[in-house]
């Protein structure tokens, strides 16, 4: 039989087309492509910024650069937070490389959570996964997004209906998100469940604790950035009172001690009132609170800029 290769290619194209148009996970494929594009763009963007926000998912969901720009109109801001992200050299170096060296108002803002100061978070797996993805995929996803969506792999567990939502049952809470090119994940949940994440963090801090070595690395970096005329601002991200109590009890994080060390390293600590904001899952801010919080942070930074020349 002649040309078996050609026949195989032609037949596989037909099969692909049939499989693609009957994809039972079409909505998931669209979301997957958007998410991949979002993280790749955040990680590999060649744009340069004046201000970067670093931290874990509470940062990526809690701070909207667009909302901040209403208070700081001349600042180019990127939300550089990653899921489970830690605050150590890996992310510090990547963040510094994204600051515009010509900018006279370079600011690094550290979103502090006890989880981000643990050795587990310091592995920065999410960030490294995105960093190590091939750049050609970024090209593909930017210019051929429909094709990428069409060819998104299926999730077998969901396909066989053996995932968490057994027999097609909807989970009790449904999470939603909208991804913004400035790095913010606008997230919400219906219905909200402000105690959902407590058990996760209880398990998390049983496995890993805040590391004094990592805090020392952070302080050294703060001093180094100050020498390079990069302003360093930090605050503890707002969450529920229950979560703060849990973290204070189990994580080994001492906020007052951290604050003193940070200020003596030359950083500016911003106090954030908890009661102004609402968390949808007991950890992350829901979208309206995130916008409000972003504006409040921007206002505080703007105020500091005016009163102290530098925050």
């Amino acid at each position, binding site marked *: 039989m002649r040309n078996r*290769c050609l026949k195989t290619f032609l037949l596989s194209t037909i099969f692909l087309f049939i499989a693609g148009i009957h994809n039972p996970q079409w909505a998931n494929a669209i979301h997957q492509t958007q998410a991949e594009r979002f993280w790749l763009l955040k990680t590999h963007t060649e744009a340069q910024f004046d201000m970067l926000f670093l931290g874990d998912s509470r940062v990526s969901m809690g701070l909207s650069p667009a909302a901040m720009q209403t208070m700081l109109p001349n600042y180019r801001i990127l939300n550089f937070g990653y899921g489970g992200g830690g605050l150590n050299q890996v992310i510090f170096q990547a963040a510094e490389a994204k600051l515009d060296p010509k900018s006279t108002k370079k600011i690094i803002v550290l979103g502090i959570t006890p989880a981000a100061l643990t050795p587990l978070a310091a592995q920065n797996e999410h960030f490294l996964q995105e960093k190590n993805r091939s750049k050609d995929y970024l090209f593909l996803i930017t210019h051929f997004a429909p094709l990428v969506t069409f060819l998104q792999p299926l999730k077998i567990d969901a396909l066989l209906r053996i995932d968490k939502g057994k027999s097609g049952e909807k989970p009790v809470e449904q999470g939603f998100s909208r991804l913004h090119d400035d790095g913010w994940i606008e997230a919400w949940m219906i219905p909200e469940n402000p105690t959902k994440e407590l058990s996760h963090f209880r398990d998390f801090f049983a496995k890993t604790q805040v590391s004094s070595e990592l805090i020392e690395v952070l302080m050294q970096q703060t001093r180094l950035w100050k020498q390079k005329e990069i302003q360093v601002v930090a605050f503890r991200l707002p969450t529920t009172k229950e979560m703060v109590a849990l973290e204070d009890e189990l994580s080994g994080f001492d906020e007052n001690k951290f604050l003193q060390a940070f200020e003596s390293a030359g950083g500016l600590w911003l106090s954030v009132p908890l009661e102004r904001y609402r968390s949808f899952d007991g950890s992350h801010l829901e979208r309206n609170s995130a916008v409000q919080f972003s504006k409040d942070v921007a206002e505080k930074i703007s105020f500091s800029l005016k009163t102290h020349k530098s925050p």
Partner: protein
Amino acid sequence: MAFHYPIFIAFATLFFAFWPLIRSTKNGRWAYITVASFFFYGWWDWRYLFLLGGSGLLDFGAGLGMQAYPRYKRFFLFSSLFGNLGSLIAFKYSKFLLANLASFLAFLPFETHFTPQIPEFMQILPVGISFYTFQSLSYTIDIYRGQLQPTRNLLHFFAYLSMFPQLVAGPIVRATDLLPQLETYNIPKEEQRWAGLKLLIHGYFKKIVIADNLAPQIKLAFSAATISNATFFWWLITAAFAFQIYCDFSGYSDIARGLAKWMGYEFPVNFDHPYTATSFREFWTRWHISLSTWFRDYLYIPLGGNHLGKWRSEINMWLTMILSGFWHGASWNFIVWGMLHALFLTFERFTQWPTRLKKLPGGRGIALFLVVLQVWLAWLFFRATNVEQAISIIKTLFSFHGGGIDFEKYGYSWLIFLFLGISREIFVFWRFEPKLYLPKLWQNAIEISFEALIIVVCIYLRGPGSEFIYFQF
């Protein structure tokens, strides 16, 4: 660029589009392969092209030197060995060797700090250095032995050394095999292209469907802060890793062989269903064949092989296995892995247990089970983060603790891919050939449909992307 990146698909499409136009002239063909291969390799980090180029130039020069000045053959051979092994040691082993030397001196006790003194660029392992170094060495050693005439054309040499399908993860193709093939050009016949396409499809299936779908759960299990004490779970993970590494590496070799066939060349078979081996000796004739034959021909036999008595033969084998383990990585884990294989081989040589067992009814199956069991246990040292973790997992495997799998965390789908991997090998062991049961008239049509279907499966059931495991070697 790796075979499973989109950029490689574009690269290969362009390469094969122009290949028929260029392959007819020798220099055109060699220059085309060399330039394309350097582009392929430079995509990771162009700076390491100098290392590949330098290693190649040294061996090309050494080959010509041995021919022009036969009296100084030994000098040229040692220059090649020194240059190649020196760069391999510098880039791959210096950190490990200095750290161990420092620990040893500290034990005496002397305070030393060797590791930070290694230049930063040397702390990154150039992709595929172990493969192309061994391939290049085979060229000079074969010339020294009088088994090969050196090529006088630099492009011919670099087309052999850098040929992109096998450059970064093998198979390690000998100069005696590939240089003569590159002299001629063969327009691949339909049969060769079809065989090549099947290798490509099955190679991708093994890598991106089986290995990549098993990878996340294995990573999760081995990176947990405290390892699970559930025996059944660890048996599954051990099996999963055995199939991950096999499918990952043999998948790469299949893709390389498929690409070579499309160019009109033949690479040797590198994996021949190793988990169907019924003795350890047979396992090593089925697993990473190009490396095991390299060590056999360039280390084991020059050391005396099995011609100097039983004990000397054992010492030679142990040395070969330990160095083979060390070739895989600069860590004690790999040395222990090599030693375990040597131990299993010694036990087998002295007791001849597989031969005896296979004479019993059902003995072949039991022999397979025992070989696979030993191979899989040894893999734990290969994968574990350190020797202590491997030992602790082996203890769990034989502690027969209850406890199930946390399906919420690990999901179910990986078990399907593990089952697929195991089934494939069982078919081979039972010599089950589905083609034989099909009506002849329909054989081709069914085969084409099956291959087309596997392409679709590769696209829609591919796992989360990860590098080929053997790139790190």
